[in-house]
């Protein structure tokens, strides 16, 4: 499969619309907002299905446990806030009230990664993959485009148990997936090649697709594996990617400590030791800045990604 690039759809607007649809069709679904509905687009539900919208104010800890209580009575709550507050502000609550009870709660982390609309380091979520994949009962999803977000949400709705979905605020990603359905735990091979495997997730897959164009021009044969599910991880697909190539690179809008690259390194170190280079945010805080500047600063533009790969392979 080679990727075909479709139209640009905003992930958050699709998120709002799809969730309004789900909420409309099932009265057991309710939504909880942490005073950010107009940013995250959870506001769509307040507008279209007001009785299913609960404003929980700026009190994330309570919001998480309220959702758990609702789930214990049979509702399916979808909780949405900025990823950084949804995860870091409530981690003990996520563990004890959601994950340990296996509550059927859907956690939606908007504005994940660096692209938080120029608000700086307090708002960046560069550890949520690490945080959420340490939870034994959690499913963790990071869709690559709006189309995949829609399909993943349908899968989340049909899955009984806690799920975290990591969404990006970036609005310049065209649809490159075409599947109407989403299988939790399944990776997608976007390119098959033999020199280098690039394993990506979420918002970075599109940057990698662009990097691949550059890399092909340099004569490299590339294998691209997109992992929209981070837990459960598609071990088979990762091992296959490693076996067919000489190097594995991972790319993510996350710290290189604890995230996708870490998961891949853990797995391959046990199953098929090979070189894994983790491209992502190093051990440092970021700051304010426009999307493009931040991605550039942290080596996450197509140019920087391809440059890093080339310098490793041809060094």
């Amino acid at each position: 499969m080679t990727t075909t690039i479709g139209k640009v759809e905003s992930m958050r607007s699709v998120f709002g619309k799809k969730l309004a649809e789900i909420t409309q069709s099932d009265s057991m679904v309710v939504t909880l907002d942490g005073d950010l509905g107009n940013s995250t687009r959870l506001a769509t539900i307040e507008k279209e299905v007001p009785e299913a919208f609960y404003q929980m104010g700026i009190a994330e800890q309570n919001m998480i446990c309220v959702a758990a209580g609702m789930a214990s009575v049979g509702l399916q709550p979808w909780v949405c806030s900025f990823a950084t507050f949804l995860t870091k502000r409530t981690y003990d609550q996520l563990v004890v009230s959601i994950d340990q009870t296996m509550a059927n709660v859907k956690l939606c982390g908007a504005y994940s990664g660096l692209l938080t609309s120029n608000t700086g380091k307090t708002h960046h979520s560069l550890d949520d993959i690490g945080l959420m994949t340490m939870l034994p009962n959690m499913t963790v999803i990071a869709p690559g485009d709006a189309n995949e977000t829609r399909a993943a949400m349908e899968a989340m709705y049909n899955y009984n148990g806690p799920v975290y979905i990591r969404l990006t605020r970036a609005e310049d990603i065209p649809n490159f997936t075409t599947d109407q359905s989403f299988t939790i735990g399944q990776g997608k091979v976007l390119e098959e090649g033999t020199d280098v495997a690039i394993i990506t997730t979420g918002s970075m897959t599109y940057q990698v697709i662009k990097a691949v164009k550059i890399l092909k021009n340099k004569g490299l044969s590339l294998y691209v594996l997109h992992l929209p599910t981070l837990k459960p991880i598609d071990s088979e697909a990762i091992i296959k990617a490693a076996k067919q190539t000489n190097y594995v690179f991972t790319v993510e809008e996350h710290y290189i400590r604890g995230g996708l690259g870490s998961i891949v390194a853990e797995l391959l170190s046990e199953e098929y030791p090979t070189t894994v280079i983790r491209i992502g945010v190093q051990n440092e805080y970021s700051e304010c800045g426009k999307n493009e500047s931040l991605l550039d600063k942290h080596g996450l533009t197509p140019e920087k990604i391809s440059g890093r790969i080339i310098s490793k392979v041809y060094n």
Partner: protein
Amino acid sequence: MSKQLITIATEIRKGIVETVYRKQQGHLGGPLSVTDILTALYFHEMKVDPKNPGWEERDRFILSKGHSGIAQYVTLAKKGYFPEEELLTFDDLGTRLQAHPDMTKLPCLDFSTGSLGQGLSAGVGMAIAAKRLDKNFYTYVVIGDGESQEGQIWEAVNIAQKYNLDNLIGILDLNGLQQFGWTVSDEEQSEDKRVRRAPEQRALEKWQGFGWQTFEVDGHNFNQLLSALQSARTDKNGLPKMIIAHTVKGKGVSFMENQYEWHSKSPTNKEYEQAMDELNSILLSFKSKQRQNTSIEVKPS
């Protein structure tokens, strides 16, 4: 056939002391403090059916101060949810009776707790769900006074008031102690021999300030407890309810009362015997009193 609530509560206290003594682990102060509250709820107030623990219309109960789980286990066993023998598995590897209530192991628990400050929020969720689903059940949540220092409690309080949750009834186990707390001055000590405390002196003002309807009772007086519970249940005025129950940590065993070290400590043989003697003599004295006056009776369930 009805049994007196005081008798039941005293038997529950015996079960708590017995279990912690036999296993040589667990908490005592908090469980003994909350026993009468649990008795009032399970043996009088709450609409529950031990034969059908998953009944959808049942009232919900959350022991937010989860370290007192043993008190709830003994209460549930006495109520007939499971055989009393199972109490002896308390805290063992593989037990359904975890140190802190775990709904995934013991299905008659409505929620899991253990990390303080989370249970009231879960109760808010249940109460909102009841309204959303047009169900008439009530949600009862017991919190500790030390636990009330957790900010999350006040997040929940705020939202409960905002959403007019008059189907949510909280009970504050106000025993003036937590695990370690603050030292007390000499004059404060003389009163009840406590050497430390949880300095909650403004519970009423706080809960009222946040817009809840409050009731203040002696948490070891069943008349007061039951009448507050009844008012709380019947006042459909849009206000969430908090019953502030003044209690004694370690209640019923003289040398444990108001002593912070008994928060979690296992009795020696001698201590165990003395504790059981004291509880037995409460039972005896109560039985003789019983002949003289009528007291509150257990509602047939």
